[in-house]
């Protein structure tokens, strides 16, 4: 792969740690290779991805300095590349300390930075509300599981599970007896199951929006000439493919969560389930919340504003890795999210996208 202009500039500036990205950054085999979308607020790092590389934790920058392709820089050397905002200094320091990377881990770190007020009061409030909503959803899901285990109608799940979710709860003791595990273990598994169900539900809410975006972008592309429609068509195809893979990943979970007793038995038998399955859906949809919010900002603001949004989204969207493909059709679908070379464009300096990242990150 030809060395991007920026990498050459960096070399000239004696920053040997920076190097051109491999093709894997743009057409990855695994999610680990692709990395997690970084909710950074510094323009230079907007929609960068962070991953564990051969030489340690590193950032994947696309369109760095207006060049095509990708550039890799060690996370520890990020400040040598561009002056990070206060928020990003904390974010980078905390990400450097994470034992492993996943969208959920990075989101937790971003939320902590937002709750410290480093991304502003709107982000602080959004982080607080998101945490509250998550806790409420998990609590509601736990209530529903307990109600189902007790054989009560789901309407009775409204009672505050905090009051009843103890290992001595009749539903827990009954389930413990039936499943052959101590009540404490069953309660812990039920709580984890509830948290996973709440997260899966939250991710599922993004799917209709993603599909609407894909259709709208597809329609917009159809009104343009081939040369004009390149980015818009790419954004539409990538959104459709992402929605398809996410729907598949979430469908199995939704079915499983519909039968809480069986789900609990499965969770007790397989400690990686449902955490890994939900995490996988999280990887697939990583970054799209902010991208969709960016689209909503531009919607109805005129063709120019909408085209800018499509370009910004096309430039920023994370590729899906080959590991998702089970069939030839899957393989073709996920390749819709790949671009080996992205033309230099101002997409990543998109102020509206940065604002969305700032507030949507929590």
């Amino acid at each position, binding site marked *: 792969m030809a060395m991007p202009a920026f990498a050459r500039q960096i070399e000239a500036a004696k920053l040997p740690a920076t190097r051109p990205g491999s093709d894997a950054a743009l057409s990855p085999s695994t999610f680990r290779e692709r990395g997690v979308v970084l909710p950074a607020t510094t323009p230079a790092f907007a929609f960068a991805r962070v991953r564990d590389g051969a030489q340690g934790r590193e950032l994947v920058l696309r369109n760095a300095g207006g060049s095509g392709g990708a550039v890799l820089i060690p996370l520890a050397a990020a400040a040598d590349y561009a*002056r*990070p*905002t*206060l928020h990003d*200094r*904390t974010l980078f320091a905390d990400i450097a300390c994470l034992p492993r990377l996943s969208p959920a881990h990075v989101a937790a770190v971003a939320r902590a930075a937002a709750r*410290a*007020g*480093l991304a*502003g*009061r*709107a982000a*602080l*409030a959004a982080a607080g509300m998101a945490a509250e909503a998550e806790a409420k959803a998990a609590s509601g899901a736990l209530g529903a599981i307990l109600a189902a285990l007790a054989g009560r109608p789901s309407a009775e799940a409204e009672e505050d599970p905090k009051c009843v979710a103890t290992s001595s709860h009749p539903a827990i003791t009954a389930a413990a007896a039936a499943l052959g595990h101590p009540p404490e273990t069953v309660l812990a598994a039920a709580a984890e199951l509830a948290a996973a169900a709440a997260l899966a539900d939250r991710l599922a809410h993004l799917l209709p929006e993603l599909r609407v975006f894909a259709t709208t972008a597809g329609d917009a592309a159809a009104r*343009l*000439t081939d*040369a*004009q429609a390149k980015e818009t068509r790419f954004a539409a195809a990538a959104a459709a493919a992402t929605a398809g893979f996410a729907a598949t990943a979430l469908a199995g979970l939704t079915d499983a969560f519909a039968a809480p007793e069986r789900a609990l038995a499965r969770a007790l038998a397989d400690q990686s389930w449902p955490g890994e399955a939900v995490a996988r859906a999280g990887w697939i949809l990583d970054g799209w919340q902010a991208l969709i919010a960016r689209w909503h900002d531009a919607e109805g*603001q*005129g*063709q*120019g*504003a909408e*085209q*800018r949004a499509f*370009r910004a989204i096309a430039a920023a969207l994370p590729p899906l890795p080959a590991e998702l493909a089970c069939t030839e059709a899957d393989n073709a679908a996920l390749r819709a999210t790949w671009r080996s070379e992205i033309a230099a464009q101002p997409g990543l300096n998109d102020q509206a996208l940065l604002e969305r990242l700032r507030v949507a990150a929590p």
Partner: protein
Amino acid sequence: MSGCVRLDRRTLADLRQRLARARPEAIRDVVALIDRLPERGEADALIAPIRPRFALMRNVIRRPASFGRVLAHPIEELLVPPDAWRRGSLSLPRSVMPTAIALAAEAVPDETRHAIAARLDKATMDDAAAVQAAGAAIWPLAAARFTTLAAEGVPPGLALPMRAADLRGLLGALGETLRLAAPLAALMSGTPRGAVPVWEQIEPRLRDLAAMAADVSGECFARTGLALMRRFMVAGPVVGLLREAASRAPSGEAERKLGAALDTFLTELPAQLPDAAALALLPHPVQQSVVADAVATVERAAGEIGTAQGERRDNLREGQAQLAALLRRRVPECLSAELLAPLARMHATSLDEHGGPASLEGIEAAARAAAAMVNAGRRLGPVDDLGLALRRAADTIAALAASAPQGAPADRLGRTDLARLVEILAGPDAAARVLGPAL
């Protein structure tokens, strides 16, 4: 009861002054009220001075579609306030429009007019399909009528807004330009002001339109070119594109007329730029983008039109000077009245007494706008004084931080809030010093 509004001079002057200082939402209500009047009379004069702001307030003010607005839609970029218009200009004084609308209405059969009124009922000018459908019935008839009147003279007994010869000339110009009304209107509807279009997306359409205009006539090419420059100079090399189209035109008329369009563009550039008072009333993010667009327009005009001719150079310099003066008025005002003053009040009491955390976001928006305006100004030339104003504001905020509680407490302005403001004004390194070693 007559729907026609009559106001005495003092009331009119007072209302005008109050409207000039009004926030977009208040203007929206007044404009909506005036738009509902069957005969607007002097009320129309009320909104004349704030008309240039309408385009910047598209999200707030959505004007109802009407016969007159549809007629004017393709040539909106050419309309200038009557007192800014000079004989010989390729622009059209807005005062010609009432007469033009009346004459165009006469050219449209009653049945068609009723159908147009039904199609436009409850539609706004944002409804491109309604505008295009009504326009398709209006523009060709209006163009033909104006061309005839320009050749044969205006009907006797018509109340003239200007000298008959001037009016005939302007009607002729309108007639020529409206021959391209449909593609011009479609382009303008798709690329409203306030959202800079992506150049690669619009370039083919501009190229086609310029070629079509050159084929129609030199007059049509000059005015279409002027409209395109005003709307799209900010987006890309529109002058180069017009030069290409002119060079391909069979006669040399298009090339000659392009020179006149460039002259008009530069002569009237200062009048097209925002003024500080109007700018101050817009939301901060809009102020930021209005200034960035104005600077980009002036920058591109300097690069594309060239300043070899003395008069063009002088006009361009006047535009640059006006923009710099605008920044020298707006930025300090923004820093003192919209950032430091409310911040000091908030610091002295509590967040809740001053609108809560949301108002802090508003103060951040003011800081961001001030910093962005100074950055935009740097592209015009040295603005050391404005840079110094930003640093002083940052120093003042850093001083407040010394007595502020740590973090971002729910009810108080915290050190983190102040550090963020310093970050916006003076960068993250200065902000890190405000937070201290904790970060």
